[in-house]
Protein backbone atom coordinates (compact mmCIF):
# COMPACT_ATOMS: atom_id res chain seq x y z
CA UNK A 1 0.00 0.00 0.00
CA UNK A 2 1.46 3.39 -0.89
CA UNK A 3 2.60 5.28 2.15
CA UNK A 4 0.68 8.46 1.30
CA UNK A 5 -2.59 6.61 1.76
CA UNK A 6 -1.39 5.17 5.07
CA UNK A 7 -0.51 8.63 6.34
CA UNK A 8 -3.91 9.97 5.37
CA UNK A 9 -5.63 7.14 7.21
CA UNK A 10 -3.50 7.68 10.32
CA UNK A 11 -4.30 11.37 10.25
CA UNK A 12 -8.03 10.70 10.40
CA UNK A 13 -7.57 8.43 13.41
CA UNK A 14 -5.55 11.04 15.20
CA UNK A 15 -8.15 13.69 14.58
CA UNK A 16 -10.95 11.59 16.04
CA UNK A 17 -8.99 10.60 19.11
CA UNK A 18 -7.72 14.18 19.46
CA UNK A 19 -11.20 15.65 19.39
CA UNK A 20 -12.38 13.29 22.10
CA UNK A 21 -9.31 13.96 24.22
CA UNK A 22 -9.50 17.75 23.97
CA UNK A 23 -11.70 17.97 27.03
CA UNK A 24 -9.40 15.88 29.23
CA UNK A 25 -6.92 18.67 29.80
CA UNK A 26 -3.27 18.51 28.86
CA UNK A 27 -0.42 17.80 31.24
CA UNK A 28 1.30 20.92 32.61
CA UNK A 29 3.69 22.63 30.25
CA UNK A 30 2.53 20.51 27.36
CA UNK A 31 1.54 21.90 23.99
CA UNK A 32 -1.52 19.66 24.47
CA UNK A 33 -3.25 17.50 21.94
CA UNK A 34 -2.03 18.42 18.50
CA UNK A 35 -2.73 17.27 14.99
CA UNK A 36 -0.54 17.03 11.90
CA UNK A 37 -1.97 19.12 9.07
CA UNK A 38 -1.16 18.95 5.39
CA UNK A 39 -0.99 21.50 2.61
CA UNK A 40 -0.61 20.53 -1.04
CA UNK A 41 0.97 22.93 -3.51
CA UNK A 42 -0.56 21.98 -6.84
CA UNK A 43 -0.89 25.25 -8.73
CA UNK A 44 1.31 25.81 -11.79
CA UNK A 45 2.98 28.72 -9.98
CA UNK A 46 3.79 26.48 -7.02
CA UNK A 47 6.29 24.17 -8.63
CA UNK A 48 9.35 23.66 -6.48
CA UNK A 49 12.45 24.27 -8.59
CA UNK A 50 15.14 21.96 -7.26
CA UNK A 51 18.80 22.77 -6.73
CA UNK A 52 19.85 19.64 -8.59
CA UNK A 53 17.66 20.55 -11.59
CA UNK A 54 14.06 19.74 -12.39
CA UNK A 55 11.00 20.47 -10.34
CA UNK A 56 8.82 18.79 -7.77
CA UNK A 57 5.11 19.25 -8.41
CA UNK A 58 2.66 18.85 -6.98
CA UNK A 59 3.94 18.37 -3.47
CA UNK A 60 2.53 18.15 0.02
CA UNK A 61 4.02 19.47 3.25
CA UNK A 62 2.98 17.99 6.60
CA UNK A 63 3.14 20.49 9.43
CA UNK A 64 2.06 21.24 12.98
CA UNK A 65 1.65 24.55 14.77
CA UNK A 66 1.53 25.44 18.46
CA UNK A 67 0.49 28.71 20.07
CA UNK A 68 -1.04 31.63 18.21
CA UNK A 69 0.31 33.90 15.51
CA UNK A 70 0.21 37.44 16.89
CA UNK A 71 -1.68 40.19 15.09
CA UNK A 72 1.62 41.82 14.11
CA UNK A 73 2.85 38.41 12.92
CA UNK A 74 6.09 38.92 14.78
CA UNK A 75 6.19 35.80 16.95
CA UNK A 76 6.58 32.91 14.51
CA UNK A 77 9.33 30.37 15.17
CA UNK A 78 10.16 27.62 12.72
CA UNK A 79 11.59 24.45 14.23
CA UNK A 80 13.41 22.29 11.71
CA UNK A 81 14.02 18.59 12.24
CA UNK A 82 16.99 16.27 11.95
CA UNK A 83 17.44 13.14 9.82
CA UNK A 84 14.80 10.96 11.44
CA UNK A 85 12.48 13.69 12.76
CA UNK A 86 9.07 14.78 11.59
CA UNK A 87 6.54 17.58 11.92
CA UNK A 88 5.43 16.32 15.32
CA UNK A 89 7.77 18.34 17.52
CA UNK A 90 5.61 18.93 20.62
CA UNK A 91 2.47 17.82 22.39
CA UNK A 92 0.71 14.53 21.89
CA UNK A 93 -1.50 13.22 19.13
CA UNK A 94 -3.97 11.76 21.60
CA UNK A 95 -4.56 11.65 25.33
CA UNK A 96 -3.02 8.20 25.64
CA UNK A 97 -0.22 8.87 23.15
CA UNK A 98 2.89 7.40 24.84
CA UNK A 99 5.38 9.47 22.85
CA UNK A 100 5.20 13.26 22.79
CA UNK A 101 6.77 15.24 19.93
CA UNK A 102 10.53 14.93 19.45
CA UNK A 103 11.38 18.26 21.15
CA UNK A 104 8.48 18.37 23.57
CA UNK A 105 10.88 19.19 26.41
CA UNK A 106 11.58 22.59 24.81
CA UNK A 107 8.20 23.55 23.39
CA UNK A 108 5.04 24.34 25.35
CA UNK A 109 3.58 26.87 27.75
CA UNK A 110 6.38 28.29 29.92
CA UNK A 111 9.10 26.26 28.21
CA UNK A 112 12.16 27.54 26.27
CA UNK A 113 10.03 28.03 23.18
CA UNK A 114 7.07 29.34 25.14
CA UNK A 115 3.87 28.69 23.21
CA UNK A 116 2.09 31.30 25.35
CA UNK A 117 4.32 33.85 23.60
CA UNK A 118 5.37 32.29 20.34
CA UNK A 119 3.71 30.68 17.35
CA UNK A 120 5.78 27.59 16.71
CA UNK A 121 5.71 25.93 13.29
CA UNK A 122 7.31 22.66 12.35
CA UNK A 123 7.12 20.66 9.15
CA UNK A 124 8.31 17.38 7.75
CA UNK A 125 11.01 17.99 5.13
CA UNK A 126 10.30 17.17 1.52
CA UNK A 127 11.81 13.82 0.72
CA UNK A 128 10.56 12.73 4.13
CA UNK A 129 8.20 9.91 4.97
CA UNK A 130 5.98 11.43 7.63
CA UNK A 131 3.37 13.19 5.55
CA UNK A 132 5.42 15.38 3.21
CA UNK A 133 6.04 14.31 -0.36
CA UNK A 134 8.93 11.86 -0.60
CA UNK A 135 10.04 8.75 -2.44
CA UNK A 136 7.12 6.73 -1.00
CA UNK A 137 4.58 9.22 -2.40
CA UNK A 138 2.74 8.65 -5.62
CA UNK A 139 4.57 9.75 -8.74
CA UNK A 140 1.91 11.57 -10.81
CA UNK A 141 3.65 10.45 -14.00
CA UNK A 142 3.20 6.74 -13.27
CA UNK A 143 0.52 6.52 -10.61
CA UNK A 144 2.95 4.42 -8.54
CA UNK A 145 5.31 5.39 -5.71
CA UNK A 146 8.34 7.38 -6.86
CA UNK A 147 10.94 5.09 -5.33
CA UNK A 148 14.33 6.11 -6.69
CA UNK A 149 12.65 8.09 -9.47
CA UNK A 150 12.17 10.75 -6.84
CA UNK A 151 14.47 13.68 -7.62
CA UNK A 152 17.55 14.29 -5.48
CA UNK A 153 16.71 17.04 -3.03
CA UNK A 154 18.97 19.31 -1.00
CA UNK A 155 18.79 21.26 2.24
CA UNK A 156 18.07 24.39 0.16
CA UNK A 157 15.11 22.61 -1.47
CA UNK A 158 13.74 21.66 1.96
CA UNK A 159 14.02 25.28 3.04
CA UNK A 160 12.33 26.59 -0.11
CA UNK A 161 9.40 24.23 0.56
CA UNK A 162 9.23 25.59 4.13
CA UNK A 163 9.19 29.13 2.73
CA UNK A 164 6.09 28.19 0.72
CA UNK A 165 4.52 26.77 3.86
CA UNK A 166 5.14 30.10 5.61
CA UNK A 167 3.49 31.92 2.68
CA UNK A 168 0.54 29.60 3.14
CA UNK A 169 0.40 30.40 6.86
CA UNK A 170 0.69 34.14 6.24
CA UNK A 171 4.08 34.44 7.95
CA UNK A 172 6.24 36.92 6.09
CA UNK A 173 9.17 36.92 8.45
CA UNK A 174 10.16 34.51 11.17
CA UNK A 175 11.13 35.69 14.59
CA UNK A 176 13.43 32.67 14.69
CA UNK A 177 14.51 29.51 12.95
CA UNK A 178 15.67 26.81 15.38
CA UNK A 179 17.04 23.35 14.71
CA UNK A 180 19.71 20.80 15.55
CA UNK A 181 21.88 18.62 13.33
CA UNK A 182 20.23 18.58 9.87
CA UNK A 183 17.75 21.04 11.37
CA UNK A 184 20.69 23.34 12.07
CA UNK A 185 21.74 23.12 8.44
CA UNK A 186 18.27 24.24 7.44
CA UNK A 187 18.55 27.15 9.87
CA UNK A 188 21.86 28.19 8.25
CA UNK A 189 20.30 27.83 4.81
CA UNK A 190 17.41 30.04 5.91
CA UNK A 191 19.81 32.79 6.94
CA UNK A 192 21.71 32.59 3.66
CA UNK A 193 18.91 31.98 1.13
CA UNK A 194 16.14 34.04 2.70
CA UNK A 195 18.04 36.73 4.64
CA UNK A 196 15.05 39.06 4.82
CA UNK A 197 12.73 36.46 6.26
CA UNK A 198 14.38 35.47 9.51
CA UNK A 199 15.38 37.61 12.49
CA UNK A 200 17.05 35.04 14.77
CA UNK A 201 18.92 31.88 13.87
CA UNK A 202 19.58 29.13 16.38
CA UNK A 203 21.62 26.33 14.85
CA UNK A 204 22.51 23.52 17.29
CA UNK A 205 24.99 20.65 16.94
CA UNK A 206 25.50 21.18 13.23
CA UNK A 207 27.95 22.33 10.56
CA UNK A 208 28.09 24.71 7.61
CA UNK A 209 29.27 21.80 5.48
CA UNK A 210 28.78 18.14 6.10
CA UNK A 211 32.05 16.83 7.55
CA UNK A 212 33.90 13.94 5.89
CA UNK A 213 33.33 11.55 8.77
CA UNK A 214 29.58 12.12 8.63
CA UNK A 215 29.54 11.47 4.87
CA UNK A 216 31.44 8.27 5.54
CA UNK A 217 28.92 7.03 8.12
CA UNK A 218 26.03 7.97 5.83
CA UNK A 219 27.60 5.99 3.01
CA UNK A 220 27.79 2.91 5.24
CA UNK A 221 24.09 3.33 5.98
CA UNK A 222 23.18 3.71 2.32
CA UNK A 223 25.25 0.71 1.33
CA UNK A 224 23.50 -1.37 3.99
CA UNK A 225 20.10 -0.42 2.56
CA UNK A 226 21.09 -0.95 -1.05
CA UNK A 227 22.70 -4.30 -0.24
CA UNK A 228 19.41 -5.57 1.17
CA UNK A 229 17.85 -7.83 -1.53
CA UNK A 230 14.45 -6.40 -0.60
CA UNK A 231 15.54 -2.91 -1.70
CA UNK A 232 15.17 -3.88 -5.38
CA UNK A 233 16.59 -0.66 -6.81
CA UNK A 234 14.28 1.34 -4.60
CA UNK A 235 11.03 0.04 -6.08
CA UNK A 236 9.88 -2.12 -3.21
CA UNK A 237 6.59 -0.55 -2.27
CA UNK A 238 4.56 -3.44 -3.70
CA UNK A 239 6.40 -5.92 -1.51
CA UNK A 240 8.63 -6.25 1.53
CA UNK A 241 10.63 -3.13 2.46
CA UNK A 242 14.42 -3.46 2.97
CA UNK A 243 13.99 -3.54 6.74
CA UNK A 244 17.27 -5.32 7.48
CA UNK A 245 19.32 -2.78 5.56
CA UNK A 246 17.50 0.18 7.06
CA UNK A 247 17.90 -1.30 10.50
CA UNK A 248 21.68 -1.61 10.08
CA UNK A 249 21.82 1.96 8.74
CA UNK A 250 20.00 3.16 11.83
CA UNK A 251 22.30 1.18 14.14
CA UNK A 252 25.36 2.83 12.59
CA UNK A 253 23.70 6.24 12.79
CA UNK A 254 22.72 5.68 16.38
CA UNK A 255 26.32 5.01 17.42
CA UNK A 256 27.32 8.40 16.02
CA UNK A 257 24.64 10.13 18.10
CA UNK A 258 26.02 8.81 21.39
CA UNK A 259 29.43 9.23 22.96
CA UNK A 260 32.02 6.86 24.35
CA UNK A 261 31.23 8.05 27.87
CA UNK A 262 27.44 7.88 27.44
CA UNK A 263 27.65 4.33 26.03
CA UNK A 264 30.03 3.26 28.76
CA UNK A 265 27.69 4.63 31.39
CA UNK A 266 24.47 3.35 29.83
CA UNK A 267 25.59 -0.17 28.93
CA UNK A 268 29.15 -0.83 29.98
CA UNK A 269 29.91 -4.47 29.17
CA UNK A 270 26.72 -5.62 30.85
CA UNK A 271 25.16 -8.81 29.55
CA UNK A 272 21.51 -9.11 28.76
CA UNK A 273 19.47 -11.54 30.87
CA UNK A 274 22.37 -13.99 31.08
CA UNK A 275 25.10 -14.57 33.61
CA UNK A 276 27.80 -15.60 31.18
CA UNK A 277 28.59 -15.43 27.47
CA UNK A 278 26.34 -17.61 25.35
CA UNK A 279 29.26 -18.41 23.03
CA UNK A 280 26.97 -17.70 20.07
CA UNK A 281 26.27 -14.65 17.88
CA UNK A 282 23.09 -13.73 19.70
CA UNK A 283 22.88 -10.32 21.37
CA UNK A 284 24.73 -11.07 24.61
CA UNK A 285 25.66 -7.49 25.35
CA UNK A 286 23.09 -4.92 26.35
CA UNK A 287 24.50 -2.49 23.82
CA UNK A 288 23.90 -5.02 21.03
CA UNK A 289 20.37 -5.62 22.07
CA UNK A 290 19.77 -1.88 22.39
CA UNK A 291 21.06 -1.19 18.89
CA UNK A 292 19.06 -4.08 17.42
CA UNK A 293 15.95 -2.74 19.08
CA UNK A 294 16.64 0.81 17.86
CA UNK A 295 17.25 -0.47 14.34
CA UNK A 296 14.17 -2.62 14.26
CA UNK A 297 11.75 -0.11 15.73
CA UNK A 298 13.05 2.49 13.26
CA UNK A 299 11.94 0.31 10.35
CA UNK A 300 8.36 0.52 11.60
CA UNK A 301 8.24 4.27 11.18
CA UNK A 302 10.77 5.17 8.53
CA UNK A 303 11.10 4.61 4.81
CA UNK A 304 14.44 3.25 3.56
CA UNK A 305 14.42 5.40 0.42
CA UNK A 306 13.85 8.50 2.52
CA UNK A 307 16.95 7.51 4.48
CA UNK A 308 18.89 7.44 1.21
CA UNK A 309 17.53 10.77 -0.01
CA UNK A 310 17.94 12.64 3.25
CA UNK A 311 21.46 11.41 3.93
CA UNK A 312 22.29 12.51 0.38
CA UNK A 313 20.89 15.96 1.13
CA UNK A 314 23.05 16.07 4.26
CA UNK A 315 26.19 15.05 2.37
CA UNK A 316 25.62 17.63 -0.36
CA UNK A 317 25.23 20.41 2.18
CA UNK A 318 28.11 22.84 1.88
CA UNK A 319 27.48 26.56 2.17
CA UNK A 320 30.89 27.32 0.74
CA UNK A 321 30.09 25.55 -2.54
CA UNK A 322 27.79 28.18 -4.01
CA UNK A 323 29.55 31.15 -2.46
CA UNK A 324 33.25 30.34 -2.53
CA UNK A 325 33.79 30.76 1.18
CA UNK A 326 31.75 30.70 4.34
CA UNK A 327 32.44 34.38 4.98
CA UNK A 328 31.12 35.13 1.50
CA UNK A 329 28.09 32.87 2.05
CA UNK A 330 27.13 34.85 5.15
CA UNK A 331 27.72 38.26 3.52
CA UNK A 332 24.05 39.18 3.16
CA UNK A 333 22.97 37.63 6.45
CA UNK A 334 20.97 40.02 8.61
CA UNK A 335 19.82 37.54 11.25
CA UNK A 336 21.24 37.45 14.74
CA UNK A 337 22.77 34.11 15.68
CA UNK A 338 23.02 31.99 18.77
CA UNK A 339 25.16 28.97 17.93
CA UNK A 340 25.04 26.05 20.37
CA UNK A 341 27.67 23.31 20.49
CA UNK A 342 27.78 20.25 22.76
CA UNK A 343 31.07 19.26 24.33
CA UNK A 344 30.94 15.50 23.66
CA UNK A 345 29.37 15.67 20.18
CA UNK A 346 31.77 13.87 17.86
CA UNK A 347 29.49 13.97 14.82
CA UNK A 348 29.55 17.77 14.88
CA UNK A 349 32.24 18.68 17.41
CA UNK A 350 32.36 22.24 18.77
CA UNK A 351 35.04 23.27 16.24
CA UNK A 352 32.47 22.91 13.45
CA UNK A 353 30.12 25.29 15.23
CA UNK A 354 32.99 27.69 15.93
CA UNK A 355 33.73 27.72 12.21
CA UNK A 356 30.24 29.15 11.67
CA UNK A 357 30.79 31.71 14.42
CA UNK A 358 34.17 32.82 13.05
CA UNK A 359 32.79 33.25 9.54
CA UNK A 360 29.89 35.35 10.82
CA UNK A 361 32.21 37.39 12.99
CA UNK A 362 34.53 38.12 10.07
CA UNK A 363 31.92 40.54 8.73
CA UNK A 364 30.81 41.64 12.20
CA UNK A 365 27.47 39.84 12.23
CA UNK A 366 25.67 39.60 15.54
CA UNK A 367 26.60 36.16 16.82
CA UNK A 368 26.80 34.46 20.18
CA UNK A 369 28.32 31.07 20.87
CA UNK A 370 27.63 28.74 23.74
CA UNK A 371 29.08 25.32 24.42
CA UNK A 372 26.84 23.06 26.48
CA UNK A 373 28.81 20.77 28.76
CA UNK A 374 27.29 17.33 28.24
CA UNK A 375 28.38 13.73 27.94
CA UNK A 376 25.39 12.71 25.80
CA UNK A 377 27.20 13.20 22.49
CA UNK A 378 25.33 14.46 19.44
CA UNK A 379 21.97 13.56 20.98
CA UNK A 380 22.58 16.11 23.74
CA UNK A 381 20.53 18.70 21.88
CA UNK A 382 17.52 16.43 22.34
CA UNK A 383 18.20 15.82 26.04
CA UNK A 384 19.90 18.70 27.86
CA UNK A 385 16.79 20.76 28.54
CA UNK A 386 18.01 22.48 31.68
CA UNK A 387 21.32 23.52 30.17
CA UNK A 388 19.73 25.03 27.05
CA UNK A 389 16.37 26.39 28.09
CA UNK A 390 17.64 29.53 29.85
CA UNK A 391 19.91 30.76 27.12
CA UNK A 392 17.49 29.90 24.32
CA UNK A 393 14.65 31.65 26.14
CA UNK A 394 16.85 34.71 26.74
CA UNK A 395 17.92 34.83 23.10
CA UNK A 396 14.34 34.63 21.84
CA UNK A 397 13.17 37.30 24.29
CA UNK A 398 15.97 39.70 23.34
CA UNK A 399 15.18 39.05 19.67
CA UNK A 400 11.50 39.72 20.17
CA UNK A 401 12.46 43.23 21.37
CA UNK A 402 14.53 43.94 18.25
CA UNK A 403 12.29 42.31 15.63
CA UNK A 404 11.91 44.36 12.47
CA UNK A 405 9.04 43.29 10.18
CA UNK A 406 9.84 42.28 6.61
CA UNK A 407 10.37 45.34 4.44
Amino acid at each position, binding site marked *: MPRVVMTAAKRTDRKEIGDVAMGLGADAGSAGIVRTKHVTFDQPSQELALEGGGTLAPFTVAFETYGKLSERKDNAILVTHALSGDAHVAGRHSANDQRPGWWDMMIGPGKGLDTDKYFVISSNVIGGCSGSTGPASENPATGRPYGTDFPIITIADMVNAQAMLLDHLGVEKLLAAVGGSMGGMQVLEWAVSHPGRVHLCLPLATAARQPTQAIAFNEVGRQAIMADPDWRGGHYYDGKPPAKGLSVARMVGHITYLSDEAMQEKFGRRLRDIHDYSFTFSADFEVESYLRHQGLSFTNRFDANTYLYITRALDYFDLTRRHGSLVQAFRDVTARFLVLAFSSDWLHPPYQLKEIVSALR*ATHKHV*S*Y*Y*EVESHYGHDAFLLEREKMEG*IIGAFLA*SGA*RTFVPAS
Partner: protein
Amino acid sequence: MRRIDYKLIADLVPHGSTVLDLACGDGELLNQLIRDKGVRGSGVDVSQEAVEACVTKGLSVFHGDLDAGLADFADGSHDVVILSMSLQQLRRPRMIVREMVRVGRQAIVSFPNFAHWTPRLQLFLGGRMPVSRDLPHQWWDTPNIHLCTIKDFRALCLEEGLRIEHELYLSGIHTQPPQRAVLPNLMARLAIFAVTRC
Protein backbone atom coordinates in the same frame (compact mmCIF):
# COMPACT_ATOMS: atom_id res chain seq x y z
CA MET B 1 26.34 53.82 40.78
CA ARG B 2 28.29 54.05 37.53
CA ARG B 3 31.75 52.67 37.66
CA ILE B 4 34.47 55.24 37.13
CA ASP B 5 36.90 52.65 35.76
CA TYR B 6 34.35 51.79 33.04
CA LYS B 7 34.04 55.47 32.19
CA LEU B 8 37.82 55.87 31.94
CA ILE B 9 38.04 52.79 29.73
CA ALA B 10 35.22 54.16 27.57
CA ASP B 11 37.14 57.41 27.18
CA LEU B 12 40.03 55.43 25.70
CA VAL B 13 37.84 53.62 23.15
CA PRO B 14 37.39 55.38 19.80
CA HIS B 15 33.82 56.06 18.71
CA GLY B 16 32.41 53.41 16.39
CA SER B 17 35.34 51.03 16.82
CA THR B 18 35.16 47.25 17.03
CA VAL B 19 35.64 46.06 20.59
CA LEU B 20 36.21 42.66 22.14
CA ASP B 21 35.71 42.54 25.91
CA LEU B 22 37.46 39.57 27.53
CA ALA B 23 35.97 38.15 30.73
CA CYS B 24 33.01 40.40 29.98
CA GLY B 25 30.88 39.10 32.87
CA ASP B 26 27.29 40.30 32.66
CA GLY B 27 28.20 42.61 29.78
CA GLU B 28 27.74 45.90 31.63
CA LEU B 29 30.91 47.51 30.25
CA LEU B 30 30.06 46.32 26.73
CA ASN B 31 26.56 47.69 27.06
CA GLN B 32 27.93 51.10 28.06
CA LEU B 33 30.42 51.10 25.19
CA ILE B 34 27.71 50.26 22.67
CA ARG B 35 25.37 52.88 24.10
CA ASP B 36 27.84 55.70 24.69
CA LYS B 37 30.51 55.12 22.09
CA GLY B 38 28.56 53.40 19.33
CA VAL B 39 31.04 50.54 19.19
CA ARG B 40 30.47 47.19 17.56
CA GLY B 41 31.19 45.11 20.57
CA SER B 42 31.21 41.50 21.62
CA GLY B 43 32.35 39.67 24.71
CA VAL B 44 34.05 36.49 25.80
CA ASP B 45 33.35 34.71 29.05
CA VAL B 46 33.84 31.25 30.46
CA SER B 47 30.80 31.15 32.72
CA GLN B 48 27.35 30.02 31.70
CA GLU B 49 25.69 32.70 33.83
CA ALA B 50 27.74 35.44 32.17
CA VAL B 51 26.92 34.21 28.67
CA GLU B 52 23.25 34.00 29.52
CA ALA B 53 23.27 37.49 31.07
CA CYS B 54 24.87 38.92 27.93
CA VAL B 55 22.41 37.14 25.63
CA THR B 56 19.58 38.51 27.78
CA LYS B 57 20.93 42.01 27.16
CA GLY B 58 21.01 41.28 23.43
CA LEU B 59 24.80 41.30 23.35
CA SER B 60 27.01 39.20 21.13
CA VAL B 61 29.05 36.89 23.34
CA PHE B 62 31.42 33.97 22.88
CA HIS B 63 31.57 31.19 25.46
CA GLY B 64 35.25 30.45 25.85
CA ASP B 65 38.10 29.97 28.29
CA LEU B 66 40.73 32.70 28.17
CA ASP B 67 43.29 30.32 29.63
CA ALA B 68 43.11 28.53 26.28
CA GLY B 69 43.99 31.72 24.43
CA LEU B 70 42.08 33.47 21.67
CA ALA B 71 42.55 30.90 18.90
CA ASP B 72 39.01 31.55 17.65
CA PHE B 73 39.80 35.20 16.94
CA ALA B 74 41.69 36.32 13.88
CA ASP B 75 44.76 38.58 13.87
CA GLY B 76 43.87 42.25 13.87
CA SER B 77 40.14 41.51 13.80
CA HIS B 78 39.31 44.18 16.40
CA ASP B 79 40.27 47.78 17.03
CA VAL B 80 40.30 47.39 20.81
CA VAL B 81 40.54 44.35 23.08
CA ILE B 82 39.68 44.95 26.72
CA LEU B 83 40.47 42.92 29.83
CA SER B 84 38.88 44.61 32.81
CA MET B 85 39.91 43.57 36.33
CA SER B 86 40.48 39.93 35.36
CA LEU B 87 44.15 39.68 34.41
CA GLN B 88 45.00 38.53 37.92
CA GLN B 89 42.54 35.63 37.67
CA LEU B 90 44.06 34.04 34.58
CA ARG B 91 46.47 31.16 34.57
CA ARG B 92 48.63 32.63 31.83
CA PRO B 93 48.39 36.42 32.00
CA ARG B 94 51.44 37.01 29.83
CA MET B 95 50.01 34.82 27.06
CA ILE B 96 46.67 36.65 27.15
CA VAL B 97 48.33 40.06 26.88
CA ARG B 98 50.18 38.77 23.84
CA GLU B 99 46.91 37.46 22.41
CA MET B 100 45.20 40.79 23.03
CA VAL B 101 47.65 42.74 20.92
CA ARG B 102 47.51 40.04 18.24
CA VAL B 103 43.71 40.19 17.94
CA GLY B 104 43.37 43.94 18.55
CA ARG B 105 45.20 47.03 17.42
CA GLN B 106 45.04 48.30 20.99
CA ALA B 107 44.76 46.46 24.29
CA ILE B 108 43.24 47.97 27.42
CA VAL B 109 44.01 46.18 30.67
CA SER B 110 42.83 47.17 34.13
CA PHE B 111 43.89 45.42 37.33
CA PRO B 112 44.15 45.89 41.09
CA ASN B 113 47.55 47.23 42.09
CA PHE B 114 49.04 44.87 44.66
CA ALA B 115 51.67 47.47 45.63
CA HIS B 116 49.07 49.85 47.04
CA TRP B 117 50.04 50.87 50.56
CA THR B 118 47.25 48.88 52.26
CA PRO B 119 48.34 45.43 51.07
CA ARG B 120 51.94 46.48 51.64
CA LEU B 121 51.16 47.37 55.25
CA GLN B 122 49.07 44.28 55.86
CA LEU B 123 51.91 42.10 54.70
CA PHE B 124 54.70 44.17 56.26
CA LEU B 125 53.15 44.85 59.66
CA GLY B 126 50.49 42.16 59.97
CA GLY B 127 52.50 39.44 58.31
CA ARG B 128 49.33 38.07 56.72
CA MET B 129 48.18 37.89 53.11
CA PRO B 130 46.33 41.14 52.40
CA VAL B 131 42.53 41.15 52.50
CA SER B 132 40.82 44.36 51.45
CA ARG B 133 37.79 45.84 49.71
CA ASP B 134 39.44 45.32 46.33
CA LEU B 135 40.87 41.90 47.18
CA PRO B 136 38.30 40.49 49.60
CA HIS B 137 39.33 36.83 49.48
CA GLN B 138 41.36 34.75 51.89
CA TRP B 139 44.55 33.32 50.41
CA TRP B 140 43.08 29.83 50.25
CA ASP B 141 39.98 30.70 48.23
CA THR B 142 41.07 33.64 46.13
CA PRO B 143 40.47 33.56 42.38
CA ASN B 144 43.27 36.14 42.12
CA ILE B 145 46.17 33.85 41.36
CA HIS B 146 48.43 36.25 39.47
CA LEU B 147 48.41 39.56 41.27
CA CYS B 148 50.81 42.21 40.05
CA THR B 149 51.78 45.80 40.62
CA ILE B 150 51.88 48.82 38.33
CA LYS B 151 55.66 48.46 38.09
CA ASP B 152 55.30 44.76 37.28
CA PHE B 153 52.91 45.47 34.43
CA ARG B 154 55.19 48.17 33.03
CA ALA B 155 58.04 45.65 33.09
CA LEU B 156 55.89 43.09 31.26
CA CYS B 157 55.08 45.66 28.58
CA LEU B 158 58.79 46.38 28.17
CA GLU B 159 59.61 42.69 27.85
CA GLU B 160 56.80 42.14 25.36
CA GLY B 161 57.83 45.18 23.33
CA LEU B 162 54.56 46.98 23.95
CA ARG B 163 54.15 50.73 23.85
CA ILE B 164 52.18 52.18 26.76
CA GLU B 165 49.83 54.79 25.28
CA HIS B 166 47.92 55.57 28.45
CA GLU B 167 48.38 54.77 32.11
CA LEU B 168 45.57 55.77 34.48
CA TYR B 169 45.25 55.33 38.24
CA LEU B 170 42.25 55.08 40.51
CA SER B 171 41.72 54.72 44.21
CA GLY B 172 38.50 52.76 43.65
CA ILE B 173 36.02 51.76 40.98
CA HIS B 174 33.65 54.47 42.16
CA THR B 175 36.24 57.10 43.08
CA GLN B 176 37.22 59.91 40.75
CA PRO B 177 40.90 59.73 39.81
CA PRO B 178 43.23 62.29 41.38
CA GLN B 179 44.25 65.37 39.36
CA ARG B 180 47.88 64.40 39.54
CA ALA B 181 49.26 61.01 40.30
CA VAL B 182 51.79 61.03 43.11
CA LEU B 183 53.70 57.78 43.64
CA PRO B 184 51.07 55.75 41.75
CA ASN B 185 52.56 52.36 42.57
CA LEU B 186 52.06 53.20 46.25
CA MET B 187 48.89 55.28 46.10
CA ALA B 188 46.72 53.75 43.33
CA ARG B 189 44.41 50.88 44.10
CA LEU B 190 43.64 50.24 40.43
CA ALA B 191 45.45 50.90 37.19
CA ILE B 192 44.30 51.03 33.59
CA PHE B 193 46.84 50.55 30.80
CA ALA B 194 46.28 51.10 27.10
CA VAL B 195 49.02 49.43 25.10
CA THR B 196 49.87 48.71 21.47
CA ARG B 197 52.56 46.78 19.73
CA CYS B 198 55.51 49.02 18.89
